[in-house]
């Protein structure tokens, strides 16, 4: 089992040092084998939390720590954090021309392996074909440039394709449901559910209960005002769907 621990995390935006802290004391422990969901109103710091864990250089940790299996990762750059087991399914994935999807995913997999132990090309292509079939992606998407000209839904599906190919220990999924119709949502959820197991954990950020009907979480957190104000089981998400966030006080 692996554990991701967030301890009393305080975060600012580097470019806006005078702006108040966006996160002001987040505590969270996620073990592999668990799916956590974070819900909460807009502007409450959910994406900041995911980006900070991943190591986005735009954010600055002013207090607290982020640890994998007891080792702080705060000093690691984003690529080293990825190789340590983190993955961030982004809300707005970048488009990169000139680099094909397949080429990129293969490079990402091989970045985790020794130079003399690269994944054999045929094995890689077979895995890629199988995974794309699960996600109902047309085969030509492997040879298209990375996210270039992809629709919003295709980009999200492509994030899940990368997730399934890279097989990280901790997947942070930032609004992976936004802009998806119900069929696409079902497919994306199917991909995440296939990853479930003792060696995988996920932190799912969403505004809507809808996604959690398809990916049933073990733990639900509610975030407001820069920290977690309530934690419970999947029933908490259902309750929030009825009552909204308004009545929840500042803890």
């Amino acid at each position, binding site marked *: 089992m692996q554990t991701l621990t967030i301890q009393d995390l305080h975060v600012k935006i580097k470019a806006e040092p005078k702006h108040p802290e966006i996160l002001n004391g987040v505590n969270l422990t996620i073990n592999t084998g668990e799916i956590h969901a974070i819900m909460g109103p807009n502007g409450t710091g959910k994406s900041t939390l995911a980006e900070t864990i*991943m*190591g*986005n*250089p735009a954010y600055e940790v002013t207090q607290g720590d982020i640890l994998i299996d007891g080792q702080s990762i705060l000093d690691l*750059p*984003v*690529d080293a954090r*990825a*190789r340590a087991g983190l*993955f*961030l399914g*982004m809300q707005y*994935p*970048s488009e*990169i*021309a*000139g*680099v094909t999807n397949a080429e*990129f995913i293969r*490079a*990402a997999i091989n*970045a*985790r392996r020794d130079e003399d132990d690269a994944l054999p090309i045929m094995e890689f292509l077979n895995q890629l074909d199988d995974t794309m079939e699960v996600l109902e992606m047309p085969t030509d998407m492997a040879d298209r*440039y990375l996210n270039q000209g992809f629709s919003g839904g295709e980009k999200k599906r492509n994030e899940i394709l*990368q997730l399934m190919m*890279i097989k990280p220990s901790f997947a942070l999924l930032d609004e992976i449901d936004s802009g998806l119709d119900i069929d696409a949502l079902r497919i994306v959820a199917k991909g995440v559910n296939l990853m479930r197991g003792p060696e995988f954990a996920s932190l799912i950020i969403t505004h809507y209960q809808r996604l959690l009907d398809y990916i049933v979480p073990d733990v639900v957190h509610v975030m407001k005002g820069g920290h977690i104000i309530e934690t419970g089981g999947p029933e908490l998400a259902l309750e929030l769907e009825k009552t909204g966030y308004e009545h929840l006080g500042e803890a």
Partner: protein
Amino acid sequence: MWPNLPKIPYQRYTKTKDLGGTITVEPALPISTGNYQPTNELEAWLLADQTVHILDVPATTTALTVSGDAAGVLIVNVAANAELTLMEHWHSVGDTLGLLVVLNLGAYAQVTYINDDQFRSQTAVIDRVANLDDHAHLDWTVAGFNRSQGFALLQTNLRGISAKATVNVGALASAKQHFGYTTQVENIGQKTIGHINQRGVITDNAHLIFNGVGHIVTGARGSDNQQENRVLMLSDGARGDANPLLLIDENDVTAGHAASVARIDTTQLYYLMSRGLPKAQAQRLVIRGFLDAGLVGIDGDLRQDLFDQIERTLQHGMED
């Protein structure tokens, strides 16, 4: 009169000139010698004391490779209705190289024209002129991987009605190199279409200039002229210029331009690195992708060779 070469100190590059050099053609076609009437001072300088080689390409030829190791003057006449892929490989050494290539496309000829430029002489002065007759189509891509100082003038004259040309330039500038491209498309005939797309990557203390000149002359009604000039600077010492120029002397036409001089996109880097790619590899992918948009139509071994050159240059020339 010298052609319009904004920001390029052409006098400095045109003081001396090496003579001679070998031009080979595969499959072998007869090369004759003859005359060429210069249309400007630059052509006159390039022609001085040089032999004018003339290559007539019949409509039955579909692929042709021209290789040269130095300076020269070459006129290529492509027959009407030909469908041709013309590849040029230039590898030079020495002091100052002056190259003039004039490509004449007969009516309805369709030509894919690829320039693999690997000039290594101290100075290189390159002038390529394409003249298109009625309904001729030209897809032209210049891979500018030179180490020389100097400049290139890439001039397309859309003379015939409905002639159409796309000119792509993918250039890499490194070390202390100063190099300028002036890529010019002139709409002369009616309903002609000309597009320019230039991409340049600059490392070390190099300076790269992209001039894009679109000129729609009087009488070229119904024509279209578009251009895009983009340079990416990878180091603090790198300098880039992107200068779009549109000269429009006719109504009832469409024209547009886009230009950018930028550093590497940190959002793209972050995305690639978030999947575990080390920074240097992520940078190389972003740069390759950027340059790739200027290397349209180049594939196979040449593409791999160019990508390998990019990798080698970046490994030496990247700053953190």
